[in-house]
């Protein structure tokens, strides 16, 4: 096999550079023990095809340490909550595995039964990254499976949310696909069977009339499933709409009413023609119509499978936590935690509930809640809010509030989360149909009265013809096709909206609220600036050496920034937790830390950012400041947006950046020290002033605001990894195109309106024929599909044209491979 000897050596498993050539197995180099272990497991089980499919396919295991992580899976009641199905012998489970990234992953995970005895079968859904496993629970436990998967680099993510299974959506989609299939089958055959009719059979001729009768009844039979199965949803929702109207809960007739009326008219009239007159009905028009409507519905529900728009705190919280109850250590489900419970938290574990630290040294990282990178130290007796991650030793805490009542999580108890956001998926269509339905019924009645007086024989024909032609098929199709195309164009440009309704909502926006950390600034990237007399090369070297000895994030950042050239000797090193570090290097005493730890004259201005003073041999040299890095072109984006929207900024941080931000926003539009609840309340208050708010944020602390706002956009550096619940996800790399996206959603709405008008023109032409009683089955069969198809082509064509004009097709070649996902 391939063994590269050029420097640096690449790890055979994961492709990272190897630090040295010490870790070997046969002739292959590895970057760490973890990678070698995986290779050996695969080798032993004859599964090295893994490396043939993709070179260096593996997941790097350098950061992995999962010992004891899945201990809670020993407890039967916790496992039972996770399983999809369980019998005495077989258990089935679906695990979410975020590390899945290539075809090798699929291959290995689907061959998992060869590695672990007892696993019966495994199947991976690549886009959703879900592995469905069934295993023999007498031979293997879930804990072993999770442990082995983690060893292989495919750690399953088991969280509080894993308990909530969603099979509903799948069923809805299957149902729709089934309907389209059945109706499509009937439509095709009915069209074929209708052909003889179009070519004018001679009914005097005995052979011809036999055929005519045969085809007629055949069509009738084929139309039954179309009417009773395919179109049943339209009758249901039309009925609901009528009921709501008379109960006065809804003031608008939905667009489904004229559709249901049209379908009924088509079917009723056709049955009448078939059995009373033995002449052709409108079966082909009926089937085609229902087929188009269902296709439109299908387009409407298309969404991004591989993105999750529904995550709340439960996706991040652990399923179980180790507690001390009755002097016994045991795992319990975090949702069952009560006040007074004693919980044990290890390194890298998340604190699930507000609790008081009773023993241990807390170094809590809240970056995942607030974006704050600096871990905060806590002493016994301090209250620790839920959501922080412990870095360091073991902690013992006393729970103060149940999980759902904690400071962070109570945000989700807010009213905003209880009710579904109003999605105006059909609002525009409904607005049209408010008049449309009434006008159609009016025309039908007038036509009926007119013909009743002048020629009663034609009355029934013309009334049903009006209802048939007025069926707003083209009208209802233009919305899903335009919005679907727009969604696709946005997606290719890395702006992923949850569904079509969001594009409509974007259109109504008049105010935008920004979060600061992680939104205007880049996440997890801070720039180190040294304020003071510039350091010499030698001094830099000394400081870098000192900093690299400390695990504190700021020290690490400084060390990385300065870079280390040569090895120096350290005589003495001491770290004072929460204060600073000091050391004697090459004979120089270097101290780095807070004011107080290092003597700083009172005259020195206060530094608001994360910072650290430096003194060498007792002399104050200056101060390292970690400044957040703003996204490129952010000022230009703000400036552009401020022309058409009112802008606000809500930051959970202190006001260190005030001078930089204030000029870009209106006075009073910038607020600092905002809690998650403050953000939510601010947006609600603006909404009560009748503003439509777009919220752009990134962390869990924005979750409430994202939910309360009309449209919540989560901005993310890697869209597949971390996003709180939202309506749309914006890739950070296209932040500067935000204005274009908002602008294009307006264009999309205008295109929908234009195609509405086009379809209305068709309706008027059709009604013109219908009122005069001239609409023949052949004309209907040609006219109705033609109008639908032309409206669809018009809508999608215009959308693509405008997208091209606005530059949405200029995608860098390097991103082309992303499209395949």
């Amino acid at each position, binding site marked *: 096999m391939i063994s590269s000897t050029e420097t640096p050596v690449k790890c055979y498993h994961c492709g990272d550079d190897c630090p040295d050539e010490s870790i070997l197995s046969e002739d292959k180099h590895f970057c760490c023990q973890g990678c070698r272990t995986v290779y050996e497991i695969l080798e032993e089980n004859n599964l090295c*095809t893994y490396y043939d*499919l993709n070179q260096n396919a593996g997941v790097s295991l350098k950061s992995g340490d999962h010992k004891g992580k899945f201990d809670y899976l020993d407890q039967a009641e916790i496992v039972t909550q996770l399983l999809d199905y369980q019998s005495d012998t077989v258990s089935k489970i679906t695990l979410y595995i975020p590390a899945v990234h290539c*075809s090798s992953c*699929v*291959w290995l995970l*689907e061959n998992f039964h060869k590695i672990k005895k007892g696993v019966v079968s495994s199947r*991976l*859904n*690549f*886009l*959703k990254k879900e592995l469905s496993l069934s295993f023999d629970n007498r031979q293997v436990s879930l804990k072993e499976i999770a442990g082995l998967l983690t060893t292989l680099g495919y750690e399953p993510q088991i969280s509080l949310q894993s308990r909530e299974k969603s099979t509903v959506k*799948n069923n809805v*989609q*299957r149902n729709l*696909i*089934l309907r389209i*299939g*059945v109706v499509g*089958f009937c439509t*095709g*055959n009915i069209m074929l*069977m209708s052909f003889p009719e179009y070519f004018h059979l001679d009914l005097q001729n005995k*052979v011809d009339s*036999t*055929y005519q009768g*045969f*085809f007629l009844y*055949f069509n009738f039979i084929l139309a039954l499933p179309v009417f009773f199965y395919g179109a049943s949803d339209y009758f249901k929702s039309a009925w609901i709409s009528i009921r709501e109207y008379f109960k006065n809960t809804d003031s608008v007739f939905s667009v489904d009413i004229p559709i249901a009326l049209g379908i009924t008219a088509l079917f009723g009239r056709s049955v009448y023609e078939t059995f009373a007159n033995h002449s052709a009905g409108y079966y082909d028009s009926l089937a085609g119509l229902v087929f188009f409507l269902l296709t439109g519905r299908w387009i409407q529900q298309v969404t991004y*499978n591989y993105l999750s728009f529904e995550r709340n705190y439960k996706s991040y919280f652990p399923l179980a936590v180790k507690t001390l109850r009755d002097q016994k250590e045991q795992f319990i489900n975090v949702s069952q935690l009560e006040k007074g419970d004693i919980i044990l938290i290890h390194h890298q574990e998340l604190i699930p509930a507000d609790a008081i630290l009773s023993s241990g040294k807390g170094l809590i990282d809240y970056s995942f809640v607030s974006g704050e990178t600096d871990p905060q130290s806590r002493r016994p007796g301090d209250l620790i809010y839920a959501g922080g991650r412990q870095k360091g030793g073991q902690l013992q805490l006393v729970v103060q509030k149940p999980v759902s009542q904690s400071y962070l999580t109570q945000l989700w108890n807010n009213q905003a989360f209880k009710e579904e956001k109003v999605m105006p998926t059909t609002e525009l269509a409904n607005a049209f149909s408010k008049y449309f339905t009434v006008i159609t019924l009016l025309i039908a009645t007038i036509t009926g009265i007119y013909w009743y007086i002048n020629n009663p024989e034609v009355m029934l024909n013309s009334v049903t013809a009006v209802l048939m032609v007025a069926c707003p098929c083209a009208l209802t199709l233009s919305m899903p096709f335009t919005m679907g195309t727009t969604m696709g164009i946005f997606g290719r440009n890395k702006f992923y909206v949850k569904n079509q309704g969001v594009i409509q909502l974007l259109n109504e926006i008049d105010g935008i609220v920004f979060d600061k950390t992680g939104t205007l600034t880049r996440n997890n990237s801070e720039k180190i600036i040294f304020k003071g007399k510039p350091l010499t090369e030698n001094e830099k070297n000394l400081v870098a050496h000192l900093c690299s000895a400390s695990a504190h994030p700021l020290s690490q950042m400084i060390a990385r920034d300065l870079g280390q050239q040569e090895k120096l000797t350290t005589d003495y090193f001491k770290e004072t937790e929460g204060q600073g570090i000091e050391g004697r290097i090459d004979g120089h005493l270097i101290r780095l830390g807070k004011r107080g730890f290092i003597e700083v004259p009172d005259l020195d201005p206060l530094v608001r950012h994360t910072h650290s003073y430096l003194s060498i041999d007792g002399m104050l040299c200056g101060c390292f400041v970690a400044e957040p890095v703003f996204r490129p072109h952010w000022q230009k984006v703000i400036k552009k947006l401020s022309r058409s929207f009112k802008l606000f900024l809500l930051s959970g941080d202190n006001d260190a950046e005030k001078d930089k931000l204030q000029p870009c926003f209106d006075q009073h539009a910038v607020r600092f020290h905002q809690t998650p609840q403050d953000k939510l309340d601010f947006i609600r208050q603006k909404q009560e002033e009748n503003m439509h708010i777009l919220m752009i944020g990134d962390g869990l602390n924005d979750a409430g605001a994202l939910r309360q706002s009309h449209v919540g956009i989560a901005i993310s550096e890697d869209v597949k990894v971390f996003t709180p619940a939202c309506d749309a996800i914006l890739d950070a790399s296209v932040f500067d195109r935000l204005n274009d996206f908002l602008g294009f959603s307006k264009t999309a709405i205008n295109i929908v309106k234009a195609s509405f008008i086009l379809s209305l023109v068709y309706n008027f032409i059709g009604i013109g024929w219908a009122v005069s009683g001239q609409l023949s089955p052949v004309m209907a069969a040609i006219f109705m599909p033609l109008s639908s198809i032309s409206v669809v082509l018009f809508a999608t064509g215009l959308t693509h044209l405008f997208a091209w004009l606005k530059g949405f097709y200029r995608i860098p070649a390097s991103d082309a491979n992303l499209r395949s996902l």
Partner: protein
Amino acid sequence: MKVIIFLAITAVLTAAGFLVAFIWATRNGQFDDTYTPSIRMLFDSEKEDPNQEKEVRP
């Protein structure tokens, strides 16, 4: 010419067979995930043990 009626019925019944297959496939969940199979089909089937192969062929 009655044969046309017979042909038409046969044709529709054949198509109905495929419709039933489609319904079965949908119920079976084959349309739930339309991406992974495109990867899966590229895998080679099991490599037979070379020794075994020799035994089979005389």
